[in-house]
């Protein structure tokens, strides 16, 4: 059940299929480049303070299990 309280935009819904293909290619080449750079020891440290896109659940899972 979805509450469509605003119009998501039809073009925006359709375009995501194409965007995803391009994104897949970029991410794949990024992984390749990462491995190449790691091999030659060229990895730089990131300077932005925001951490990764993934939520690290390790400690929270542990916490949940004790309850």
């Amino acid at each position, binding site marked *: 059940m979805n509450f469509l309280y605003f119009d*998501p935009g039809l073009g*925006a819904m359709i375009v995501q299929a194409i965007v995803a293909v391009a*994104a897949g290619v970029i991410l794949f080449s990024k992984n390749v480049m990462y491995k190449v750079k790691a091999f030659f020891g060229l990895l730089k440290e990131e300077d932005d*303070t925001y951490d990764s896109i993934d*939520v690290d659940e390790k400690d*929270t899972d542990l916490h*949940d299990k004790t309850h």
Partner: protein
Amino acid sequence: MTKHTENLHQASFRDPSGYMFHDGEQLRRRIHPIYFPQYRALTDSGFYSTLIKKGLLIPHRETQAVEDGIVITPETIPFITNPYEWSFSMYKHAALHTLKLQKYALSKGFILKDASAYNVTFHKGKPIFIDTLSFDFYEENTPWRAYKQFITHFFGPLVLAKYYGTEVFKMMQTHIDGIPVSLIASLLPGKSKLSSTVFTNIHLLAKMERKHSEDYKAETKLASLSKKSQENILESLFDYIKKLDVKEASEWGDYYTKTNYDAIAFEAKKKLIREWVLPLRPKRLIDVGGNDGTFARTITDTVSQVIVTDIDSNAVDHNYKQVQQNKEENMLPFVCDVLQPAPGIGFNNTERSSLLERLTDFQPDVTMALALIHHITLSGNVPFEKSAEFFAKFSKNLIIEFPTREDSWVESLLVRKREFINHFDFYNESNFEAGYAQYFQLEKKEAVAGTKRILYLFKAK
């Protein structure tokens, strides 16, 4: 029905799932039965509690649960900043935060049903998501409904800022639902198409939106999109935004390395401010025109809420980076031009409060305005009694620095008036005091050693 007696918050009428209301001082959120299934699933699965533990979502308590409505009480946020008041890094982090939440939601069978920039604000030194009812169930293989909103609220403004600087964020003041995709696409330079992320997420999106703009009956079948594909979109946007940078000259440059007074005077000013602030025992303090927070940081150890504004987005950004690095929880920087503070915007002009309304609610115990009055008076041509009226609207105690005519900054501002220099003969100590006497009582006055400046402490009448 309690609905009619509750004092509705002006910003929350768009979402049919529930609304915010004022219960005395406390802001609460009422959830309608239509959203009960989602709310229960989000609560019972531990989704909310994980996000809250991780500091990604504003904590809330369920304070009432009856048949026709559940009431939750979120943790109070002392001061809400809006997207058009954020520096580049702040804007960037709010965008990354939204993507992170969507990716996590997806992994747990939920989605963010909207991606409004107003769903994120800054609290305890970090971006935090504040719209607890923004989550919905994920339907297998559906594209992200809020994708376009993410582009118009976050991605578009950020990419525009990359080319034209952070002034672009002020366009959010005139476009409460984000900058239209077609406008973003037409403003961006042709070379922006060379990036496949920008090309697909903006230029291609604009084209597709144009093509499908006449589907009045919503007849065209919606495309399907696998979960993995959607994750790819989120990750590539995340990577692109994280690397984004803005190159713009600062209004003040390295102000403190170019000040017209030496290190000893600088320390003397810091000491004087601390001596004056401490006896006032403030809980909330605002430093207007506070640059990167250097002077406000002399008292952050004793004040629980410090907000620092500056007209210069770079200075605010520098301040925000220090907040992040030092993990400061009581310092909130944001961009503000005193000569045109953020107005009330949206439906009825009340959806997003004006800066003055928010400052009046914030009720700072101490207002600081250091090295600011000569800019307001000489660059902005604002008479002393008018700037006094402005400060009086929200200040109890005002610590204000008056650079005299002999100060080199003032000299420079006066010289630039050229043949109109005589029009500014009123700029002196006694006229300043007379102007402020209309709204304030003079408590203390002291020359800052080693400078041509005087520090005043005024109390509101």
